[in-house]
């Protein structure tokens, strides 16, 4: 199994090639964990680095992410028998009263590209819906987005809803959006703030990796 070939296919966003190589690897009895870690996640790391170094744009990164997802989908049913656990689960949405979704979508896509399981519950999301979904999917992270100065306070309402339902400590709450700052995050007791989509995905992955190791 030449992981370089699979890596190149991921980096170029070649969905068909990735599917074919992954199927072939399974036929050759290559361990599922190796396919996942060396063949699929590692090249996405390179794609992420290329994006951070301003060598490629988001559409190219999304093509790679789609190719990676196609590969993951093939091996996913074999995860439990291979002892593979997902890195972590994120519930993401734009808070009540706010219709902006592009920034939130970018964060979701980049988190998926980093190997996280992401549930995107949309825009204009009521406070209780965040809690409901986080409980349902046993999320690790809840990511909240707002783009307006007048919807930013709704982020705080979501956190209060988690407190009201007595489940605040179960989740790491990340926040972001154009008017949001670290000071605001501190003020409303969010667990973390990141300033853009790439750093949000990077932070989430680091946090979950550390959490798993602890």
């Amino acid at each position, binding site marked *: 199994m030449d992981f370089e070939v699979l890596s190149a296919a991921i980096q170029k966003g070649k969905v068909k090639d990735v599917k074919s190589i992954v199927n072939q690897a399974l036929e050759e009895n290559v361990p599922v964990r190796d396919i996942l870690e060396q063949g699929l996640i590692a090249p996405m790391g390179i794609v992420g680095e290329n994006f951070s170094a301003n060598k490629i744009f988001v*559409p190219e990164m999304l093509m790679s992410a789609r190719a990676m997802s196609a590969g993951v989908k093939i091996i996913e049913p074999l995860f439990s028998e291979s002892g593979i656990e997902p890195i972590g689960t994120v519930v993401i949405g734009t808070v009540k009263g706010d219709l902006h979704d*592009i920034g939130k979508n970018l964060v979701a*896509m980049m988190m998926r590209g980093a190997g996280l399981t992401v549930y995107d519950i*949309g825009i204009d999301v009521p406070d209780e819906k965040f809690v409901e979904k986080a409980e349902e999917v046993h999320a690790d992270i809840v990511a909240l987005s707002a783009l307006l*100065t*007048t919807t930013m*306070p709704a982020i705080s309402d979501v956190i209060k809803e988690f407190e009201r339902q007595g489940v605040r400590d179960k989740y790491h709450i990340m926040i972001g959006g154009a008017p949001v700052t670290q000071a605001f995050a501190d003020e409303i007791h969010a667990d973390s703030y990141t300033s853009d989509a790439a750093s949000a995905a990077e932070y989430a992955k680091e946090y979950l990796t550390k959490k798993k190791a602890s």
Partner: protein
Amino acid sequence: MTPKQFTSLAYDTVDDFLYGVCPNPVTCKNGMVIGGGIIYPEINFTLPAMEATETTLPKAKDIYKEIIEGVLDKALHLHTPGIVVEFETLPQYTEHPEWGIEIFKILRSTMYEYEEKHGLKSVFRMTPNDLREMNRPPIMRSGAYWESMLKIFTETAREGADFLSIESTGGKEINDEAIVNADLRTSIFALGCLGARDMKWLWSNISKIAEETGSIAAGDSACGFANTSMVLAEQGFLPKVYAAVMRAVAAPRALVAIENGAVGPSKDCAYENVYLKAITGTPIALEGKSAACAHFSPIGNIALSVADTWSNESVQQVKLLSGFAPVVSMEQLIYDCRLLNKATEKGHARLMRDLLVESDCYLDPQAYIMKPDVVFEISEEIVKEQSPFLRTLHTAIKALDILDRAVENKELIIDEREENWLEMLREQVEEIPEDEEEFISEMKDELSGKRYLPEEYGI
């Protein structure tokens, strides 16, 4: 109303394509003329971080009162010949039109008071939100959100709003996903097929309100399309050449508003306004360096080069060292306009325009696409056709031709990672058939089960 048709440009020569003046100026009730020789500042503002609810409405009203008095005092102090004030409502104030109308009345009455007592001329641009996208998929032509929009438009027009504007969202539900993929083909469908059909319906309705109330149907903005692309390109997420093409392809959609009753000044954040002005001769609002309080752009100077009102986009009521941010914006806009009006008075308007253009145009494809000669070249391509779809498709091809030529001639320098994208975008556009019905059918198949309702666009 029979839609207007545009088959040629409004100008004989690009030399006459200047700021502050246009072939079809707009005269307001108080005598202010937009596009009649003077460029006016246009101020916009919003609340600081706070919720917009019924409970906070009294506080919001106090803040808006404080803002309007602040900016009018500044305008008076700096001997401004006149200003435009835009009230772009928060979604909650359109959803509950009675709240928005209360705030409108505070702003409008204060402006009347300053005009009466101090002779400060001002006109009011009312911009409700396009709430129709609150339904997912959006319901475009009926329902509670549409009714709220109609109510706030009608009531404020009746109560003294001079200009009616909106940043409409027809097709945006499809375009949002297309943007992050730099999917120009889907964007052409969103703008040229869905957006254009919605604009015709929407602006026929707004123009009817304007006619009945004596207000002015001013114009729209493809903010959620071209500006989103620009902001994402500024962040390094999307190729700048893609954002430049998106700017040009937003123009045919914008033209539909003018064909269906709008007369200008079109909305400030619509940089595609430059093509509108070239084709229709109507006045336009624009924003650039003085809107950095709201968003960054690579077109800070060139955007001012043919503007008729000059805006700050929006700024929240927060305290800076000198004073509150809207007052700071007011001062900046006034000085920008004062300089340009002085240049006109001294006979140097063309020189001033060219300085504004040339200081930006070779540094970024999004600026290059706004060069007056390029604007004319693209506008001439637009008026060759009457179908918004064909206009949009041909504009994309023309914009790509122009950018290719500029790069080849080394007139425009683009990043290495941008270079492949000109070819990739052209490949996307070349897949689009010239037959609109065939294209719609293709896209309906591709987008089936996705986020829009074809029947809401009459297709």
